[in-house]
């Protein structure tokens, strides 16, 4: 029997930039993003896929990056919080709405929460309050009671002018 492969070279596109790295087969995607690519805006908050602070978008799907191996992302396109702002560095409508509505306090869950918001609004531009709550139920926040997060998303959901 041959030894299982312990490491593998992968190629990913993160926030539009291509990276090629050799990673250990067991490296979680969240660790890869944080430690290999030094994109520390994606956070690590639990070991069970519940808290959502590591949420990223992989090939258009909302993913908890602690539940996926880096090698599974080979050839894929990943979007993290660092890719949200406009090219000139100004805040995107989601970032702006989170700040304006005081939808963040400590800011630790915020990157994952904003990516969940982006995914939600891309698939359902006019969600009801119930749909918003379902859309972010996989992302835990201990600071806000979710009130202002829901309000921030509602402000985007009711705004025809917004381009995410």
């Amino acid at each position, binding site marked *: 029997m041959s030894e299982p492969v312990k490491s593998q070279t992968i190629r990913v596109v993160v926030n539009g930039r291509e990276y090629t790295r050799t990673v*250990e087969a*067991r490296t979680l995607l969240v660790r890869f993003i*944080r430690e290999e690519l030094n*994109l*520390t*805006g*994606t*956070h*690590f*908050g*639990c*070991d*069970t896929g*519940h*808290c959502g*602070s590591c949420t990223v978008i992989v090939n258009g799907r909302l993913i908890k990056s602690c539940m996926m191996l880096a090698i599974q992302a080979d050839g894929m396109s990943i979007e*993290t*919080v*660092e890719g*949200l*702002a406009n090219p000139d560095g100004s*805040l995107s409508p989601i*970032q702006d709405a*989170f*700040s*304006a509505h*005081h939808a*963040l*306090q*400590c*800011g*630790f*869950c*915020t*990157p994952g929460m*904003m990516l969940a918001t982006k995914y939600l609004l891309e698939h359902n531009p006019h969600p009801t*309050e119930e749909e*918003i*709550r*379902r859309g*972010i*139920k996989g*992302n*835990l*926040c*201990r*600071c*806000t*009671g*979710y*009130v*202002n*997060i*829901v309000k921030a998303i509602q402000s985007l959901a009711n705004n025809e002018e917004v381009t995410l």
Partner: protein
Amino acid sequence: MSGTTVTTQQTARTQWSGQSIPRKEDERLVKGQGRFADDIRRHNEAYVYLLRSPYGHARIRRVDVRAAQEAPGVIMTLTGDEVREIQKPFMEIAPPPGGYIEDYCLAVDKVRFMGEPVVAILAETAEQARDAADLVDIEYEPLDAVVTGEDALKDTAPLLHGKVGSNVVWHGLYDWGSVEEAKRQADKIVKIDRLHFHRFTSTPIECNAAVVEYYPGSGEYTFWCNNTMPQFAAMFMGPALGIPTDRLHFVTQDIGGSFGNKITTYVYLTICAILAKKSGRPVHWTEYRTDHILGGSHGNERTFLDIEVPVLNDGTILGLSARAIDDCGAYPRYEPLGSVIWSQVVPGVYRFRNVRIDYTQVVTNKCPVGPNRGYSRLQHMWMLERVIDIVAHELNLDPVEIRKKNYIKPDEMPYETPNGCVYDSGDYPRCLDMALKLINYDYWRQRQAEVRGTGKLIGIGIGSTLDSGTNNFGQARIINPELPFSGNGEVANVKLDLYGEVVVTIGTTPQGQGHETTAAQVVSDILGVSPDRVRVLIGHDNARNVYTGFSGTYASQFAVTGLGAVQGAAQKLKREIQQLAAGMMGSDPEEIELVDGTARVVGRPDTAIPFIGLANVVFANNATMPEGLDVSLNCTYTYRPPFKVPDVERKFGNLTLTYATQIHACVVEVDEATGETKILDYAAVDDSGRLIHPQIVEGQVHGAAGLGIGAALYETLEYDAEGQMLTPNFYAYKAVTALDVPMIKTAAIESPSPFSPNGAKGMGEGGGAPLHAICSALQDVMRQTSRAIVHDSFNPSERVYRLLRQQPSARRGVEVISNRS
């Protein structure tokens, strides 16, 4: 925000304070540019993994780390036997015999809770450290465990700490007024057998983490960490490591929530310090969620027994007596401070004057507790609110009327409580009326009758509570008269930097409370610059030399202590600027006004010097300094609240400076078939004195309400009889989600504190109001059905289901005795 209502005691408006300006913290946080503890990387760092006890209580027979030491990447291991040689036991706050407890950073000889660290492994990668842990061979001899406070007091109970001779950490009798006299005067005495406040945790989304580096050249350790009370940690760690505390350099930056839970991490930081020194490597430690829930910091569990409440027929409550048993888990650590901290709010919001509480704190085979949002006061105020509702229930009185009858009246403020605490200001009846209006109380009372018989039941509940802020640490002497503590305080530095930039440094450790923003608002008003031109340094760093022994962020105090210090420092700087500018422009300091980053002579806007010009004279051009002046433009101020040392014998004195009010009201719907409880409407009215940033205050109200709702209905830390934890991760610990918290309606009144430097009151903890309000609403449901008593602070569907079905013949645990029948 549903609206802020300003009371008649309106405060003077200023340009920046009082406005909800955009938070200075937000831009970096929404861009993912925050710097949290696990984001820190040091060259050549190594990783720590902690192997934890699988037993609640066991003797450690043998630890064999040889195979682990040989594993790939392993640098070293650390065991309890080694720690015993390196570390002195941490200081204990309790006097003997509770103070005989020996607490080390790793288990020595015995493990006393599931999750207690037993072996630390340092390796080149986090994965290698974790892998090596599988190779550690430990022989345990399991011992009987004790997992409830009541059992811990039994003669037959297993002892956790042999030297103490019992499981009691601290015992004290609190007795004010005369409960016996009140019982003689009463028409009735309501007796409640037992109320139980459950164990839960705020468990912030960022777990504990640290990068620790030892520099042999100076003997200094640097902790890049998320501890939220670093100088408290230093007080434990310095003596334990046998080094002066000034060799402990703490650096905090962004912190991903704490809620008090990150105060007692000194145990883990000590492990990291030992490994860093021994290995010569920077060491990196980050908890997994399971580590955090198993071995982090839990909230205090408290059982109240034999509660007796003397009342008059009209519902006037004359007093209260009870026994309280507080379960602090396996090691006291911050405890037994909670055994006095509850007495900041002895009568809650009520007027009764006769109180006797026989208070005992015990150890059990569970994770150590630590401060947890609402710390120690919420347990007590929950009990008081249960008493109010149970008295109303048993005497068939209206829950609103009985509260209003017993509330301290606004014209009695400032109000001295039976134990000498002074409630600074407030208007409880008005807050209650506002809360009831927000939930549309009359409508729901009507609906309540209409839905009877449909399978649904509606309950309306009230939680009236206080958020006491700015501790007088002198209260620690009531626990242990030998402790050299009293008062409180925070320090701030405000300066002009070399090119006239305004820079603020504070000793606090914010975790979302927006200190950078509110500090900038205060400085802006004093120095005449906009907040975006005020730089507030992030976090606590004792190398900046701006801290006191109290520095940190905890216990609802920043608006008073932190902003009090900022205000004092900014005013000092303003005086220096006025002196310097007056000297340079040949006028009087009183004639100098600060406008838009310049100092100018009043009435002569063209005669002005920009801050850069002032800074130039002091920092780079001082031969031009006006003669006779001695200014630094670098001003430090320590705010010290007006406290005295409490009377230890009488357990009497002012224990906190400010008392913010939280009055919550809620409507719940209970499914009779399942016991499932759904919140239909929820309102929170707060009075935090003068508001510096209304949006931030409202955010704190929301957050405290969210965690409280979670605790009331979903979140519990459960152990089985052997001390096995049943809820050690987010699979089993059901952290409240967006689906569980309703749109909380809010309103605020502002009763400025006469005691704080700015009229503000500390706030943020919330006093556990949702626990009180939801239990109250469930009692209102039981009033319509089984007449069961809501006796626990945790009420998941299955408990509500059982309460609904409690037979009339069942023991209800409550009795009303008539004094004059």
